[in-house]
Each structure stands twice: as C-alpha cells, then as structure tokens.
C-alpha cells in the first residue's frame, strides 16, 4: 500500500512538472513583452532594455526556464508584477477561499447527487424519475456563470424587490459583509454562510445533477446482475438488498468520478468566483491573466494542477479502500 502511494506521488509530481513546464513555455513564447508592464507608457528603447535586464528577460529561454524552475521548487515564486506583493502571499490569501468553496460544493455534489440518483433508480420509470431525469439533464447543461447570474437575479434582486423573508435575501458579492469585522461569534458565522450560499448552490446544483445522472445509471446497471437476483431469492429484506448489495457496488465507480470531476469543478470555480467576487484563486488568476501578471499566472496554474493531482490521489486511495480487490495489488 505504501509503495502504491509513493509511486502515485512520484507520478503526480511528474504531472505537475509537465503542466508548469508547458505553461512556462506557452507564456514565454506568446507575443507581448512583459517588460512593457514595468516601464512608463511611451518609454524609450533604453528603459525597456533596462527593465528587460532587471526581469532577466535578456537571457536565453532555456536558462530562464532552469533558474525559474529552481526558484519555483525552492518556494521562491517571485513578486506579482501588478500587485507588487510576494506571489506566495497572494496565494496564501486566496487558497483558503477556493478550498472552502470547492470542498463544500463537492460535499453538496455527492450527498445530493447520490440521493437523487438512488431515489430515481428505486422509483425507476415513475413520473418522479422522468421529472428528475429532465431536471438533472437541464441543470447539468447550464453554464455555471449563467446559473450564477440567474440565482443573483432571483435571490439578490428579486428577493429584495418582492420583500421576501430576510433569510432568503442573499448577498451576491464577496465572502463576507463589509462590516463583518464588527460582528461577533455567531453573527460572523451566519454572515459567512450567507455569502457562501449562492456560489455553493451554483456549483453544487450543477455537480449534483451530473452525479445523479451517473448514479442512476450505475444503480440500474448493478440491479440487473445475477447476484442481486440471488440475494433477493435468498429472502434478504428488500432494503438490505438495496443498501448492501446494490448500492455498495454501484457507488464504487462514483469514487473514480470524483477524481475525474475535479478539473471541471475548478473550471466552474473560476467563473463562479469572478461573478460573486469571491476572493479565491480563480479570481486571482483571471485578474492576473488580464494584467499579464506572469508570476501569478504561473503560480495559480501550478496550484490548480497540484490540487487536481492531490484530488486524484485521494480518489485513488478511496477507491482502494472501498474495493477490497484492489488492496492486495501492489
């Protein structure tokens, strides 16, 4: 088991290396001169040359890559061109918000998604099943940024205009109220939760719809197997058959889905963070890309890659834990 983990870790590190290397070269081969950001508009060729030297852009690409990689591995991620702050500081500020949003939406995705999928499979071909099939398909097809805007329309603007109860009037911007510093204890928690609500519902609804579609299929698939018929024939209680024989086998592939869905989740996070002004990594990245802030773009890309790799590793371990057959193989 330990060997397996170590092997996966080494592979994961390789993947991260490939991702950041590709990003480095794509960014550096792109047209446009980052030195222009450093000099005043209309600066002469001399100043531009000086800025290029200061940024190390006059050296050959391979040398730049080598020293950049060395610094990067040591944790020296440079200074943001646009914010003039250490990149590590920017990341440290933003990462917790992205983790909060993505982990909580993963929970919603799987708890709600599995529940809906199982209900659909049990009520197979009933009006409820059909209704949920249509609903999940439609929600799954919605772009995250559009669903986010529609939720803002309903729960921020609509709720205020039609005087809905206060708890249904949800904030559409930021991760905390402007005056949240003055809140105490419980009030601060409630404020945080209210700000999390709409971004979470956006990502959670789309994720849950996809999961439900998958779980429904998986459960129906397992139910057709002979061992389920055998279990029923032996006289095991229907509920026990559903839980112990069907569900356990049907949910195994769902664990793999977890690893595969992470890149999509982070893509969704990028849009949702931009719309709700959520101070996380996605927003930092979009801002950095817009400002040609190369060190920050590189760092955010690397962090997203690391998150995906860690997520995949966890999914792998989880899978080995759920499926006893995999535990023995090295």
């Amino acid at each position, binding site marked *: 088991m330990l060997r397996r983990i170590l092997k996966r870790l080494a*592979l994961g590190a*390789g*993947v*991260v290396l*490939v*991702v950041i290397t590709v*990003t480095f070269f*794509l*960014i550096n081969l*792109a*047209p*446009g001169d980052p030195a222009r950001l450093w000099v005043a508009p209309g600066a002469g060729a001399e100043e531009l040359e000086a800025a290029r030297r200061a940024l190390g852009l006059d050296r050959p690409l391979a040398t730049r890559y080598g020293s950049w990689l060395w610094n990067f591995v040591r944790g020296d991620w440079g200074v943001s061109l646009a914010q003039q702050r250490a990149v590590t500081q920017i990341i440290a500020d933003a990462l917790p918000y992205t983790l909060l949003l993505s982990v909580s939406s993963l929970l919603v995705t799987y708890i709600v998604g599995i529940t809906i999928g199982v209900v659909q499979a049990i009520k197979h071909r009933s009006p409820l099943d059909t209704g949920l099939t249509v609903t999940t*398909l*439609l929600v*799954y*097809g*919605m*772009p995250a*940024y*559009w*669903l986010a*805007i*529609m939720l*803002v*329309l309903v729960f921020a*603007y609509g709720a205020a*205009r039609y005087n809905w109860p206060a708890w249904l009037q949800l904030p559409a911007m930021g991760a905390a109220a402007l005056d949240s510093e003055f809140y105490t204890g419980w009030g601060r928690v409630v404020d945080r939760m209210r700000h999390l609500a709409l971004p979470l519902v956006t990502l959670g609804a789309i994720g849950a719809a996809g999961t439900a579609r998958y779980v429904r299929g998986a459960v*129906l698939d397992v139910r*057709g197997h002979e061992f389920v018929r055998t279990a029923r024939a032996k006289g095991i209680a229907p509920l026990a058959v559903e839980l112990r024989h069907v569900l356990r086998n049907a949910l195994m592939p769902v664990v793999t889905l977890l690893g595969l869905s992470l*890149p*999509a989740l*982070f*893509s969704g996070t*990028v*849009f949702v963070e*931009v*719309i709700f002004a959520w101070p996380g990594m996605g927003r930092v*990245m*979009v801002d950095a*890309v*817009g400002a*040609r802030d190369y060190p920050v*773009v590189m760092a*955010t*890309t690397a962090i*997203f*890659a690391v998150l*995906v*790799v860690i997520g*995949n590793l966890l999914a792998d371990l989880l899978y080995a834990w759920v499926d006893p057959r995999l535990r023995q193989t090295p």
Partner: protein
Amino acid sequence: MSTARALLRDGRTVTGLAILALFGALALLAPWVAPTDPVALHDVLATRFLSPFTVGADGVRHWLGTDAFGRDVFSRLVYGARISLAVGLLSVAVSIGVGAAVGVTSAMAGGVIERALMAVTDAALAMPRIVLLLALVTLWQPSLLLVVLVLGFTGWMSVARLTRAEVKGLMGRPFVEAARAGGSGRLRLMWRHVLPNALTPLIVAAALGVGNAIMLEAGLSFLGLGVPAPAPSWGNMIASGRDALVNAPWVAAFPGLAVALAVVASNLVGDGARDALDPRTRRAPR
C-alpha cells in the same frame, strides 16, 4: 442493423439531433430568419430594453425583447448560433483527430512509446481546461481560430484514452488476426480493419464534446476573451445582460437557455449513441 438505424431508434438521439438541427438551420439561415440586423444601432434610447413580445417603433415584433442598445435579442441569438456551432463542431473535429491519432499510435506501438503517450495524456487531463484557455487566449491575440485550436488541443485526452482501450481490445480479436495473416500491413490493418470498428467511443466522445466546447466558448466570450464585442455570441450576450439584470433579465436569460439547450441536445445524442452502439446494452434500452 446499420449504425445509422441503430442510432435513430433511440428517442434521445432523435430529440438531441432535432434540437441541434434546429440550431443549425437557424444559424445557416440567419440572414432570413433574423428580423433585424444583429449589430446595427438605431434610436438607442427609444428601442432599448423593450420586453419580450413588444412591437418596436419600426413595426418589428421583438419576440425575446431588445438589449441595452436596442438590438433584437432573437436576431442576435440566431447569429450567435453561427459562432457557437462553428466553434463546437470545428474544435471537436480537432480533438477527435488528435485524440484518435494519439490513441491508435500508443495502442499499436506499445512499450515505451505507449507509456510516454499515456503519461502525457494523464498530465493534460490533470490540467483544468479553463486555466489553459485563459492563459492562452489572453496572452495570444484572441481570435476565432485560436479559440477553436485551443479548445481542440485541450479536449483530446479522453478520446485518446477511449481509442487506445478500444483498439487494444480489437487487436486480439480473430478478424484482426485473420487480416494480419492475410498480409495486411500495419497501416492498412489499422485503417481498414481496426478503426472502423473502434468508431463507437469516437462518436460518443464527439457528441458529448460539442456541448462542452459550446459551453466553454460561451464562457470565454462571457469573460470577454472570445468573440469581440459588437459581433453576437451567446457568451458575450450573457455578459452584457449581466449589467441590466434588474431592468431586463431577458437579455441574459435567453442566450443562457440556448447554451443549456445545446448542451442538453449534445448529451442526449451522446447518451443515446452510447447505448445504441454498445452491444452490451443494445437490447436493453431504458
């Protein structure tokens, strides 16, 4: 049973294809279908934010209302379909081409080459697509071609994996053995015998990929990185509607519904195709 007939027996495939065909027809016939010019401006103050179904001063009925510049939302939606569908289809063509090439090569070569190609595939899969898209589209001059290429070259990985698995499975089958014994060269063997039998995952991946590409293209345009402003695209229509959410929710709502409908359609086709073409589930439709 022929492939086409197997496909068309599934209600989902037919529904999905019908929706896509409708969008396709609207896109192709845009100049005749659209009641007004999608970009021209007239008396902006008099024509802006007309709600759906109202008749404008020029006697044109605005089925889906007008936007902040008095442009007919339906007309823009129809013209936007051109960009969405073109990007969707072209980028998927690129993905399928690259993915099939990588998949077939690694399955046939085996050994070090196979492992290296699969490692690259896994690395590419670990990258959130939007991150790469964002970086590329802003750092290079945004253009339709770039969006197609970037979407194409970031969407091939699942195709490569599926193709490899399918080809490896087929390589051990008797008919491939027979063709090889009959003196077929590697290329001929692959082109004439193996690939035609490995089409199922490609068709499914293509169907699902179109929806995904449409959604991502709209996303890029939404962030202002796709199609430049006056030209209509579903994404930039949603973005512009965001500023007028309170006064004119229809400006953002309809293009979003169009994206969702296109994605749903492509998923229906993909699901239907998978069940229809997979021999294991062919006889048990649900």
